[in-house]
């Protein structure tokens, strides 16, 4: 496992303080962290590798022998018509499919060296390392602070001051701090949809994941909020591997590095986003991205 992601602050640790300070001045390019990440980006390695992954819900086959690699610290977009299996694929990566009794999968799916389909996988720890953001913002009916502190409270033993720091760090990172800093104890359900979704992202990164899965994160948001989320993904791309499922092809072309096109449970094509949108190899891909169907 290549532990190069930026850890959230842990109070007393000086290095992590630096990260925290970085967040106070996010545009500063000469930071130690940025150069380090830039060097990483030159040699992108796969973090999620799947081979011949097939999946069923009962007798219905949702995924048909998918083989693809998701590169580290890149934004990978999954596109395709509804019901093509992209959400199913996403939900296998952090085993959210475990909640569906009839769901099963064959093939291989690895996060680094961790076998995700193995029966002995520590799902709780996996979900800490692979965070997920859902289509509809789903903040808990608690205060804004408690929402962000929910994950850390599950996984870490932190002093109150450390927790406060971590919550601020996460909210800053999710670009929602300025809007909520004066009302951290207000109910999260009182925020607007876009703010709620950014709060959910803050909540997810507060536990220090390596991978962020986003299942149509903007489909319930207005264009302004969508823009905010896209800018946020752009900010986060240096430290997290992001996989985004989207129906919005402009969004995929705007903000992703790589794009995979799925159709009826199969991976049709995966390539650089630029190549997919300018020169797709498959006729189906071309039809889809040009809006002929879907």
């Amino acid at each position: 496992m290549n532990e190069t992601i930026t850890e959230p602050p842990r109070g007393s640790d000086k290095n992590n303080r630096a990260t925290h300070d970085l967040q106070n001045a996010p545009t500063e390019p000469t930071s130690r962290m940025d150069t380090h990440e830039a060097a990483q980006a030159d040699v992108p390695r796969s973090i999620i590798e799947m081979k011949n992954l097939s999946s069923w819900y009962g007798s219905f086959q949702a995924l048909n022998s998918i083989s693809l690699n998701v590169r580290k610290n890149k934004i990978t977009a999954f596109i395709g018509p509804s019901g093509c299996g992209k959400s199913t694929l996403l939900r296998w990566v952090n085993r959210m499919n475990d909640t569906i009794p009839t769901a099963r999968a064959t093939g291989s799916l690895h996060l680094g060296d961790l076998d995700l389909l193995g029966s002995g996988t520590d799902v709780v720890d996996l979900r800490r390392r692979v965070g997920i953001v859902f289509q509809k913002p789903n903040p808990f009916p608690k205060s804004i602070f408690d929402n962000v502190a929910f994950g850390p409270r599950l996984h870490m033993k932190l002093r109150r001051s450390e927790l406060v720091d971590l919550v601020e760090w996460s909210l800053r990172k999710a670009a929602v701090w300025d809007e909520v800093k004066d009302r951290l104890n207000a109910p999260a359900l009182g925020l607007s949809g876009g703010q709620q979704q950014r709060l959910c992202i803050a909540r997810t990164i507060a536990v220090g994941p390596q991978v962020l899965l986003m299942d149509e994160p903007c489909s319930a948001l207005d264009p302004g909020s969508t823009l905010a989320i896209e800018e946020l993904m752009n900010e986060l791309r240096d430290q997290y591997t992001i996989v985004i499922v989207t129906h919005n092809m402009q969004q995929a072309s705007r903000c992703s590095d790589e794009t995979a096109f799925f159709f009826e449970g199969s991976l049709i094509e995966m390539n650089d986003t630029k190549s997919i949108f300018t020169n797709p190899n498959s006729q189906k891909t071309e039809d889809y991205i040009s809006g002929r169907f879907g």
Partner: protein
Amino acid sequence: MSEFNPKGDEQVKGQTPENSPVADPSPTNKMQLAAGKSTEQFRPTHLITSRVRLAKDICFQRMCILTASVSVLILVFLLGSILASGIPSLSWTLLTGFPEPEPENAGMWPALLGTLWVCSMCALITLPLGIGTAILIEEFTPRNRLAQKLASLIQLNISNLAGVPSVVYGILGLTAFVSMFSLFDDTGDSGAPSLEIGAVYYDQFSNLASDPFLASGDESARERYFLVPVDLRDDPTTVPTTGMVAYENQEAGLVPVEIIAIDPFAEDPSTSPDQLSRTIDETSTPGRISEKQWYYLRLPFGRGVIAGALTLMLVILPVIIISTQEALRAVPTTLRAGALGLGATPWQVVWNVTLPSAVPGIMTGSILAMSRAIGETAPILIIAGIVYIRSAPQHLMDDYTVMPLQIYNWTSRPQEEFHHIAAGGIVILLAILLTFNAVAVLIRHRMQNKLH
């Protein structure tokens, strides 16, 4: 036509709906055909005029108002007649008095406290059990086939049990809790039941100060009673001996006293008033008394408070389980997914997310169930059956009566005056019910405000 066609690769490329033979006679395709054949707009026929629909709407509205007002009117009538005959007979005696044969002195204090005891015990037992069962069924649905079958069997049973008449539960409670299938009928040598906690047995001895044989005339050698704990004696049948420590029941509690035992036919051991006051007859036979803590328990439960609480538990458990299940189902699955996605274990999801969101709903169901328990008469009539209780229950196994039972007893008397105080009792019962509900509604309201 930008409609999604899952198998429409070829169709999208070449053919248009007009020249393609459409085999599927679905309504959309029919409309497409009609639209294709002529350039005219589709004209809907056989329209139901909006006047008819509006008339139906108004009709339905009126019917709703009618049914609602009929039920409210019946309630208002019942409440009005009870209040009219009950309020004049409300008095301090009715609230704090004891059941007496004369209606003007009769009160329902023991029944009031009995209701509080039984219902609070019932709530303490039923709420954790019922909510726990609902969580198990709703949140921890097993993956194993056999366990799933079992869970659905339990579910079926719970739904059926909610409709069983409460008198049936009374009979079940009588067998299961009062007599416990006669499994524990043997009692030990000490005269105390073999299985019990929370009770201390004493033998009570009196001194011989009042005995003319020992009477010294000294005021301090008055008659005293000593309590000797049964547990402290190796053999409960031995007579007390000199030097044995006993306790005297004084206002400050039990005070240890060393007693002196004599042979009544021997010479007087002392004339000191202090020693005389501690002197008892070696051959005297004590009376056995017991001191019971509030949590006193023995098996079988007998006709005590705990049996009543458990029987009422049977009555309201299905209601609480079903309403809790409904409340849990109403919690959006996205919340559970969100917590799971953050790495919460299923238990953490239930405790931190699902349960707090479901609390208002659970409270509503519990309020209704507890109101039913407070008003329940039939099962208590079977398992307690006693109305002339002269004291409030002191411990879990004590005899008790409840307010509905007391009211039922009064209404079945021939004297008119008893009917009036029964109405007064109903008013008190209603007041207690409303207070309970108001408190619960208030808590629910605060919880809801905190969530949103």
